């Protein structure tokens, strides 16, 4: 059991089970947009279902530029994660930092960050097991979703992707700044998306949500 913990296998299994359904949805979306092998290969680099799903949903309606910008916006938080792990990895060799950076997502960051600092070798062994293991499961499930999901023709397919994204957004409603971000972004999107040229409504809504969150957070900090 100690060996499984040390190598990160014990942490990997529940994560892999939890992420598989989402990966199947992403794979189905990839097939629906004819993402092909290039899109599947890109999944290794995106390594974030929300960013990939966001880009895929926008590519037909809003164009490639908006789809790419939105995908990058969604993944922008990864910079915060790698900055915090970068301080922890200062003594690690460059090859490890080059590889490990591509494996940082919410879950792998949380696991690595919560772990007591060990020897550099233990850190590498743990992070690479979790990151590469989850990445392999993730991309395999996307491949399965892409291969078989496209054959499904259910009315509910239209709502599955938004529901997956809702799961990621809802926890932010617990904090004042998060609530302001979500409410303002949603209201502005409902008004702006149907009226503004393709994709710009979404970017306007995202910017408005960011601004509202910053203002609400500032008010909250000043009050406390």
């Amino acid at each position, binding site marked *: 059991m100690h060996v499984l913990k040390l190598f990160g296998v014990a942490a990997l299994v529940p994560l892999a089970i939890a992420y598989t359904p989402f990966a199947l949805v992403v794979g189905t979306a990839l097939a629906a947009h004819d993402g092909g092998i290039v899109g599947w290969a890109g*999944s290794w*680099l995106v390594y974030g279902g929300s960013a990939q799903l966001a880009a895929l949903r926008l590519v037909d309606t809003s164009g490639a530029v908006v789809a790419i910008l939105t995908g990058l916006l969604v993944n922008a938080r990864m*910079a915060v994660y790698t900055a915090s792990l970068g301080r922890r990895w200062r003594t690690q060799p460059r090859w490890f930092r080059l590889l490990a950076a591509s494996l940082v997502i919410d879950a792998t960051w949380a696991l690595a960050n919560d772990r007591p600092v060990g020897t550099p070798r233990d850190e590498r062994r743990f992070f690479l097991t979790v990151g590469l293991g989850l990445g392999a499961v993730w991309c395999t499930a996307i491949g399965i979703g892409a291969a078989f999901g496209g054959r499904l023709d259910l009315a509910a397919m*239209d709502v599955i992707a*938004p529901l997956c994204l809702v799961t990621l957004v809802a926890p932010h409603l617990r904090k004042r700044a998060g609530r302001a971000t979500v409410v303002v972004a949603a209201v502005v999107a409902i008004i702006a998306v149907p009226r503004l040229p393709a994709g710009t409504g979404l970017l306007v809504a995202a910017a408005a949500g960011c601004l509202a969150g910053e203002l609400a957070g500032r008010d909250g900090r000043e009050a406390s």
Partner: protein
Amino acid sequence: MSAGLVVLLVGLGSYVVRLLPALAGARITPRVERALAAAGTAALTALVAGDVAMADSAGATVAAAAAVGTGIVVAHRGGSMIRVLLAGVPVYVLVLAVAG
């Protein structure tokens, strides 16, 4: 541009976003940290709300809004993605059958 190429470009950009702070060991100020975190939340919210607003018909809009509302309640209470889907999809199908 094909969807596959878009995903690849998002992937390359995401790698750069991840790599630079890891290599530099950079310190990100709390303000930038909040802005980066909020950007993702705002973009995802706008995407979901835009999907609801741009549904194929009025009935589909009502059904999607009902499903997303149900999903928010379940997720806000700590429900997993699978639970959100199990709660939201039947609501969508039912409302679509009635209102669609």
